[in-house]
């Protein structure tokens, strides 16, 4: 381990011009990209094959809705807080996709993936009220009792499909 570190240091000493190595303290070694074009092509090709329509692979995606991130896949139900400006039966496309994955690959956006490449379609299946939560206030010897019923509105989405197009270089 130590000898490997020494080797890296000597490399960095040779390349004095790079500011990353000389200025900051870093325990990790520098990432080295080897044979980029060939490997990129291979990766893109294999992901495109995984994603293709005839494969019928189940994909999952991480989408940002309602102030948080959801890991969704085909047929999932998600319960969004609040009475959103949508009607029951409306079909929407969730556009803030942070990540898409299949059984054998994961694609991460920086921070978002292109919304044309990945599409997460959803339907509004229910709009309802949430189960009321009770807030009791009882002050001893003051003859004071309050009972608050707190209930909010909710919108339930069904994820229809998570699909991705072939990755382009």
């Amino acid at each position: 381990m130590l000898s490997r570190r020494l080797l890296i240091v000597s490399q960095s000493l040779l390349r004095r011009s790079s500011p990353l190595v000389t200025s900051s303290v870093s325990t990790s070694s520098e990432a080295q990209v080897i044979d980029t074009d060939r490997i990129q092509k291979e990766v893109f090709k294999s992901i495109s094959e995984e994603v293709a329509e005839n494969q019928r692979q189940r994909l999952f995606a991480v989408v940002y809705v309602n102030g948080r991130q959801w890991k969704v896949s085909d047929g999932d139900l998600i319960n969004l807080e609040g009475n959103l400006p949508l009607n029951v039966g409306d079909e929407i496309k969730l556009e803030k996709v942070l990540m898409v994955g299949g059984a054998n690959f994961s694609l991460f956006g920086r921070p978002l993936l292109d919304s044309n490449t990945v599409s997460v379609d959803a339907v509004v299946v229910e709009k309802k009220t949430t189960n009321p939560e009770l807030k009791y206030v009882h002050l001893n010897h003051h003859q004071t009792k309050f009972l608050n019923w707190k209930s909010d509105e909710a919108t339930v989405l069904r994820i229809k499909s998570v699909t991705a197009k072939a990755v382009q270089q």
Partner: protein
Amino acid sequence: MPSVPRVDRLKPIYTAAKALNFGWRFSDFLKIPAYNGISRYTNQLHRITVRFCKQSESSVGVRNFIENQIVEIGRKNPSVVIYAQPVRNSNPSIRAEYGNGRTLQINAKNMTETEVSKDFHLLFSRSGEPVVKLESRQSALCPSVQGQWTPITWLPTAMNTESLPAKQFSEHKSTATSATEYILQNQPK
């Protein structure tokens, strides 16, 4: 109201059995009946009945609602049967029947027209499942696509053949820089 009771309702006997545990089922998972929305969305509300009194003051809002809005709503939702049922000296109520056999009823006593309209639309957008506390805000058909993570998922396979404890796997790993590493990386000029 017709003198013969309506016979067009789908009310199988097991509906009663489902209503039995209505009171003590406090929490449930998020679900929607009839796989709704998986291929297409269908409205789960089948029929809705508005009961009101023609004279009493408590059903003024309901009467106004029927007069002004109910026809338009009926036109927009051709799949839903809407009944307006005058009942003498009764408290007004809105009763909705859903595809899963459940019935929801809202007491509309002394409600204004706006409040009645709001509740009417709420009943239209419900799926018929009872409102309960949710165990989770999401429910999935397939829990994991890539397989669930376990503590041994990403362990190096070199560990399999080694007899433990071995020195190379017992090293303390830390992100902090040791003094030796610091000197090696920032050599004095």
